[in-house]
């Protein structure tokens, strides 16, 4: 299945990437995806994908196919089939 990951704001600035696809045969969760992103972007400050409050993740919206993950199963939300995941930072500007 194809998982399209879209970055906004600081995620784009830090990774240098706007969006990309990754392919997987298995069902994964959001937390699995975050681990993959941490490894993929380690040299670009992978710590931004830390799940600890100080990390960007705690101050972000993550949308799975247009639904905010806290309305599904949070970080345990399963990514089944072709999907789009959006990482959107919230702590900025006004």
């Amino acid at each position: 299945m194809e998982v399209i990951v879209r970055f906004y704001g600081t995620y784009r600035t830090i990774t240098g990437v706007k969006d990309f696809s990754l392919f997987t045969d298995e069902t994964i969760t959001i937390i699995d995806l975050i681990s993959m992103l941490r490894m993929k972007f380690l040299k670009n400050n992978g710590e931004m994908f830390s799940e600890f409050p100080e990390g960007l993740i705690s101050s972000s919206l993550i949308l799975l196919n247009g639904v905010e993950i806290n309305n599904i199963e949070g970080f345990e939300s399963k990514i089944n089939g072709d999907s789009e995941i959006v990482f959107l930072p919230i702590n900025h500007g006004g």
Partner: protein
Amino acid sequence: MFEYDNRIAVGVSGGKDSLSLLHILKEIEEEFPKSEIVAISVDEGIKDYRDEALSLAKTYTSKLDVEHIIVSFKELFGLTIEDVVDNELGITPCSYCGVLRRRALDKAARMIDADRLATGHTLDDMAQTALINIFRGNIKGLTTFWPGGKKVDWFVQRVKPLCEVPEKESTLFAFLNSIEFQSIACPYAEDSMRTEVRLFLNKMENKHPGTLHTILKTVIRIAPNQNLHENVSVCTICGEPSTSTICRVCELIKMR
């Protein structure tokens, strides 16, 4: 917060909260033909960062067919934030920016004869401000928590329609309505106490949902119903309304 025929100045930074607010107020305005909305943006002169935000503000106000006015620190005060970043007194850029931006918005709102000045402060902003006031011992700051605004001579009544809306929701609203907003933080934001308080409150809200709402409700309940008219006079330097002989804007400008 509003009357049906208000002329409403909306502070629009180009960020998610102010653009969401503008979007919502524009929708409501269409049902009240005697009301009017004017967007006001403030250019603090932060290179690249503010340029991008203003461009987004211009694009969206044009799309909504809303009049858009831009005022700048340079025109109003003779300086930009870049000029005060490395001041010898250790005053953070945010301290300058907050005070001068409030003055700029107020002046612009008076210039266009607005009845209300609406800003996109969210629940998170309100809770952060409450805590910052406590940490700084600023009792007066705690006593002026009136999101619906109060009429004070010389000032345009300030209202905060999004004051009970969590920042996550204003962000989600903007995103789902395809509002293009600036999504990077101010390059000087790291220097501020607000950033530390924000991280702390994020942690508290994650662990104890409802914390932000409780802080806001508590502060509103303890804000006494004081008469602000008594304390407003005029700055002896700039002639603007002030609660002291020299207003905070002039103090900061003198200090740099």
